[in-house]
C-alpha cells in the first residue's frame, strides 16, 4: 500500500515494503516501562463481571494512574520547573479522578483532561490529546508543494492564513524565490486581519466560558465582518488556500479599501463595548486575576510563546525579532505584562487587536502596485489568457499543474507569529516535487503541555478560565 498513483503516469511511487526491500532488520522491541497497565480492566457499573473492553476506548497506557512515579507525579503536578507546591497543606481527604473529556463544552475542541480532584481543588492534571489526529504530516508528504497550502491551512483552523504564510515562506526560502512587494503587503494585511478575527473568536468563547454570555454574541458579530472580507477576497470564509508559494492566489477585489475602513470601525467600536463590559466587572476580575499563572521559567522550559509568554513578561514576538514578509516597515508595538494570569492575557489580546488593526491600516495605505505573483513562471502558473498565445506558457502551466515544480534539496525551519504563538514549519525536500517531510510546530501543543503547571491547585471553575486563556486549537495540537 503506497501513496495514490501519479495522475499522469499512473505508476505508483513504490517504497520498498518490509518484504521486498533488502530485509531491513526488525528493530528490537524495547519494552516500554511495563508498570503502565496496557489495557485497564473495568467494571461497568451495575454488573458483577469485568466486561470485555474490546469496544471501549482503551487509552489505558496513556491514562493517569492512582499512584505514579515521583518524576511522572511532578510532571502532572506541574512542579517540574518551578516547585512551589506546598506539600504540607495537602489534606489526606479521598481524591477522585474525573474526566474532563473529549466531548466537553469548555475544552475548546477535543482535548481530554484527567483531573485528580480533592473536593473542588485540583491536585493533578494529565492532558490526553490525539482525538483530532488527522495524519496531516503524512498527507503533506503525498501532496506536491503547490497543493501544500490546502493541507496545511486546515491545521490551525482559527488562523488559516498564518499556516499558509509559514508554509509559503519556507518553500520560498528553499527555492530562493523573491516575492513582489504587493504580494508581501497583501500577505501581511491578510494575516494581521486573521489575527483580529482569531482574537475576536477567542474573546467570544472565553467570555462564554467565564459566564459573560453576551460576549459570545458580540464576538461573532465583529468576526462576521472580517469573514465577509475574507470571502470577498479569497472566495472562502475559512481554509482559504490564498497564500501560495510564489505570491497570493488573486488580487484584492475592487473597493477593498473602504471595506477595511468599515471593518476597522466596527471592530474598534466592538472592542470598546467588550472592555466596558468586562474590564471593570467585579465578577470578571474575581474569576481572572491570579488564575492560571505561568512563570517565565516555565515559559522557557515548556516552549510557551505568544501571548502567554508576553503575559508572563517575556518580550518575544517573532514579528519583531525575526521579521518576515516585509513586516518591519510597519510601525507597531508589542505589549507585555508581568503577572502571567488570565486577566493579563485578556488585556494583551485586546491590545494586540488594536495593534493589528493599525498594521492593517498602514498596509492598506502604503499598498504598492504591481503584480501579486512572482514573475518566475516555473513556480507560479501563467495567467489564463497567456496560455492560448504562447506555447511556453502552456508548457509551464502543464508542468506546474501535473507534476508540480521541483524544489532543490535541503531543509529549512520557518517561524511565523500566529495568534497563539510561534508557528514553525520544518520542511525537508529531497529535490522532488513533493516534500519529503513536513513537521509543523504548533504553539498550542506546547500550551497544552504547560496546562498542569497552570491548573494544579486551583478550583475547577478556574480550570475553565485558564484553559480558555491558553486558547488551544486542537487542530494545531494533534495535526
Amino acid at each position: 500500500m503506497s501513496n495514490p498513483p501519479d495522475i499522469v503516469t499512473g505508476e505508483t511511487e513504490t517504497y520498498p515494503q518490509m518484504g521486498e526491500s533488502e530485509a531491513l532488520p526488525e528493530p528490537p522491541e524495547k519494552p516500554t516501562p511495563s508498570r503502565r497497565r496496557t489495557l485497564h480492566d473495568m467494571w461497568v457499573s451495575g454488573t458483577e463481571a469485568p466486561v470485555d473492553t474490546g469496544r471501549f476506548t482503551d487509552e489505558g497506557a496513556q491514562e493517569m494512574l492512582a499512584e505514579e512515579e515521583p518524576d511522572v507525579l511532578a510532571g502532572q503536578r506541574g512542579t517540574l520547573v518551578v516547585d512551589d507546591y506546598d506539600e504540607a497543606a495537602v489534606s489526606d481527604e479521598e481524591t477522585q479522578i474525573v474526566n474532563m473529556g473529549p466531548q466537553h463544552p469548555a475544552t475548546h475542541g477535543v482535548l481530554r483532561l484527567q483531573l485528580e480532584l480533592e473536593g473542588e481543588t485540583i491536585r493533578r492534571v494529565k492532558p490526553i490529546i490525539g482525538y483530532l489526529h488527522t495524519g496531516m504530516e503524512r498527507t503533506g508528504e503525498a501532496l506536491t508543494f503547490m497543493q501544500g497550502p490546502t493541507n496545511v491551512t486546515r491545521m490551525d483552523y482559527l488562523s488559516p492564513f498564518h499556516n499558509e504564510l509559514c508554509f509559503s515562506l519556507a518553500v520560498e526560502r528553499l527555492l530562493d524565490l523573491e516575492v513582489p512587494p504587493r504580494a508581501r503587503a497583501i500577505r501581511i494585511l491578510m494575516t494581521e486581519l486573521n489575527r483580529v478575527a482569531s482574537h475576536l473568536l477567542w474573546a467570544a468563547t472565553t467570555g462564554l466560558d467565564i459566564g459573560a454570555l453576551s460576549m459570545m454574541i458580540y464576538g461573532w458579530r465583529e468576526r462576521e465582518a472580517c469573514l465577509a472580507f475574507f470571502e470577498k477576497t479569497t472566495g472562502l470564509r475559512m481554509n482559504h488556500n490564498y497564500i501560495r508559494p510564489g505570491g497570493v492566489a488573486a488580487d484584492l477585489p475592487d473597493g477593498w479599501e473602504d471595506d477595511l475602513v468599515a471593518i476597522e470601525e466596527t471592530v474598534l467600536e466592538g472592542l470598546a463595548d467588550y472592555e466596558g463590559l468586562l474590564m471593570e466587572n467585579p465578577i470578571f476580575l474575581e474569576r481572572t486575576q491570579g488564575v492560571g499563572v505561568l512563570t517565565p521559567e516555565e515559559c522557557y522550559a515548556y516552549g510557551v510563546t505568544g501571548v502567554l509568554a508576553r503575559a508572563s513578561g517575556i518580550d518575544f514576538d517573532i514579528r519583531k525579532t525575526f521579521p518576515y514578509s516585509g513586516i518591519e516597515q510597519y510601525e507597531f508595538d508589542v505589549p507585555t505584562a508581568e503577572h502571567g494570569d488570565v486577566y493579563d492575557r485578556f488585556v494583551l489580546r485586546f491590545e494586540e487587536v488594536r495593534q493589528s488593526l493599525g498594521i492593517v491600516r498602514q498596509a492598506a495605505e502604503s499598498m504598492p502596485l504591481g503584480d501579486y505573483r512572482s514573475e518566475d513562471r516555473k513556480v507560479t502558473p501563467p495567467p489564463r489568457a497567456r496560455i492560448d498565445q504562447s506555447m511556453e506558457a502552456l508548457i509551464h502551466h502543464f508542468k506546474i499543474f501535473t507534476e508540480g515544480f521541483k524544489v532543490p534539496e535541503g531543509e529549512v525551519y520557518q517561524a511565523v507569529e500566529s495568534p497563539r504563538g510561534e508557528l514553525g514549519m520544518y520542511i525537508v525536500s529531497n529535490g522532488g516535487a513533493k516534500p519529503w517531510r513536513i513537521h509543523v510546530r504548533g504553539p498550542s501543543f506546547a500550551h497544552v503541555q504547560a496546562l498542569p503547571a497552570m491548573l494544579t491547585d486551583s478550583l475547577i471553575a478556574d480550570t475553565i478560565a485558564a484553559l480558555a486563556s491558553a486558547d488551544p486549537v486542537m487542530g494545531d495540537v494533534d495535526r
Partner: protein
Amino acid sequence: MTLSAYLPIALMFLLVVGFAGISMVLSRSLAPHNPTPEKLDPYECGIVPLQEPLQRFPVKFYLVAMLFVIFDIEIVFLFAWAARFVDLGWYGVAAVGIFTLLLIETLVYVWKRGALDWNVQHRARYRRVVAVDAAKEAA
C-alpha cells in the same frame, strides 16, 4: 368565608395537577422508551467510566448544601409576611426585621469561620501575583 372563596384555589389546583398529569401520560405513551446499558452508564464526556463514581463526597459539598437550605427556608417564611405586609404595618416590619437579623448573624458567623471560601491556594505563584499588585499600590 363561603365555600366559593376557595373556588379559584381549587381551580388552580386542578389545573396544575391536570397539566402535570397529562404531560407525563402523553410523553410516557408517545415517546419511545428504550433503556440500553450505555444509557444507564454515568456520562463521562464520552469516555467509558473507569470505576464507580465516588460514593463519599467531601464534607464541603454537604456544608454548602445545608447553608443553602437555611437561607432558602428563610425566604419562604418571608413570603407569608410579604402577602399582608401593608396591614401588618410597622409591627410586621419589626418582627421580620428581628428574624432576618438573626439569620444575618449566622451568615456573619459562617463567613468568619471560613466555611464559604473554597479557594485553597497552596502555590506561591498565586500569592506572588497578589503581592505584586500590593507592592504596586504601595509604590
